[in-house]
């Protein structure tokens, strides 16, 4: 079953990709994301070394030529083919590295790659939204430990970015300003939740953080998407992401799992420039070194997050951790 089904009770689409049940899962003695070495089995990447490589996911949820849906939709519950793209971004040929371990120039290269993939995927007819992301760690579902991220190119704006963009449009209508521009200014003025501030980018624990050590990273000036960043902005974003990743690892002395995702302007040709403010959301699931923040009744069923750590305390802890590795 590979198709998208619409939920009229929530207004959201759900993608079914049952072939993914058979995707590669924590292989013990073979990494498909490592380079292909002479005399060794071929991997996904047929070169003995590489810097950054992207490729279409072998087990995609969305594909450019999706099969006809198995079921017939209705006016109430439409069904569409699962059109789009799912790409893998391999950060390095070093199997044991993480984003935090990569040299600065490699992270800078990744920023260029994320921007380039956004431009490439945006040209495809079925694509309306491009979201680079990384799932780091088994507790957030990573099935391959080699350092990599993914890019989903969706046929519509996914629910969370759509909700953010809706709030941004309402704020713009009410104030004439971008909500993220206002939030960045407010956080810089207050300072208590700021983890790192550069000339062009800011990393902070949101006032409303849903996860205890959640960090948001956004440019000071209004930039709608990754391709809109200039060279200096890309330089500083790379440094900021490295710094946050290293602070996470220094927080409790182990490589901290997280979900990292870029939210940016939809690629549907709509009027998004004034309401889309590029940002990165990093959401670690840990609330302490040995305890996870589970999405349970209130969060999963109610959509109402309850956090165990004050954002101000989390930011102070992350600033201390960042100083240890600066």
């Amino acid at each position: 079953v590979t198709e998208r089904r619409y939920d009229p009770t929530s207004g959201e689409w759900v993608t079914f990709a049952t072939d993914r049940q058979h995707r590669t899962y924590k292989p013990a003695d073979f990494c498909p994301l490592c380079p292909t070495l002479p005399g060794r089995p071929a991997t996904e990447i047929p070169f003995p070394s590489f810097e950054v490589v992207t490729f279409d996911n072998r087990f995609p949820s969305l594909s450019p030529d999706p099969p006809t849906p198995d079921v017939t939709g209705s006016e109430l519950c439409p069904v569409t083919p699962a059109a789009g793209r799912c790409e893998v971004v391999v950060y390095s040929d070093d199997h044991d590295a993480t984003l935090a371990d990569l040299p600065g120039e490699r992270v800078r290269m990744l920023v260029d790659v994320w921007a380039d993939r956004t431009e490439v995927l945006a040209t495809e007819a079925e694509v309306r939204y491009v979201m680079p992301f990384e799932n780091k760690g088994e507790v957030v579902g990573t099935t391959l430990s080699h350092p990599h991220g993914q890019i989903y190119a969706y046929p519509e704006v996914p629910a969370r970015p759509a909700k953010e963009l809706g709030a941004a449009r309402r704020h713009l209508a009410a104030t004439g300003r971008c909500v993220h521009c206002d939030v960045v200014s407010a956080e810089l003025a207050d300072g208590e939740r700021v983890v790192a501030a550069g000339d062009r980018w800011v990393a902070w624990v949101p006032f409303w953080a849903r996860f205890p050590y959640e960090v948001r990273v956004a440019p000071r000036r209004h930039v709608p998407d990754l391709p809109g960043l200039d060279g200096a902005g890309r330089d500083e974003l790379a440094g900021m992401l490295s710094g946050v990743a290293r602070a996470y690892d220094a927080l409790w002395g182990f490589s901290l799992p997280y979900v990292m995702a870029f939210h940016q302007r939809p690629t549907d040709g709509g009027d998004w420039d004034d309401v889309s403010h590029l940002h990165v959301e990093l959401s670690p699931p840990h609330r302490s070194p040995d305890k996870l923040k589970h999405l349970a009744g209130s969060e999963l069923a109610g959509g109402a997050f309850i956090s165990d750590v004050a954002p101000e305390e989390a930011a102070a802890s992350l600033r201390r951790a960042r100083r240890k590795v600066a």
Partner: protein
Amino acid sequence: VTADNDHSEERQGPPPLTGAPVGAGVAGAEVAVGEALVRVEYTKPDGRRLSVYRRREASRG
């Protein structure tokens, strides 16, 4: 070996690339990505796209 941990297909790995470029251009042709990078696009034998990124300086060698 159980169904859950049989990764024989993955151990064997996918077939190698053809080296054929995507779109117009010759095999191995480089596409400039900004000032610092180049991208080379390939199509895997199963039709999937693969893009190799490298720094422009490295491509000159």
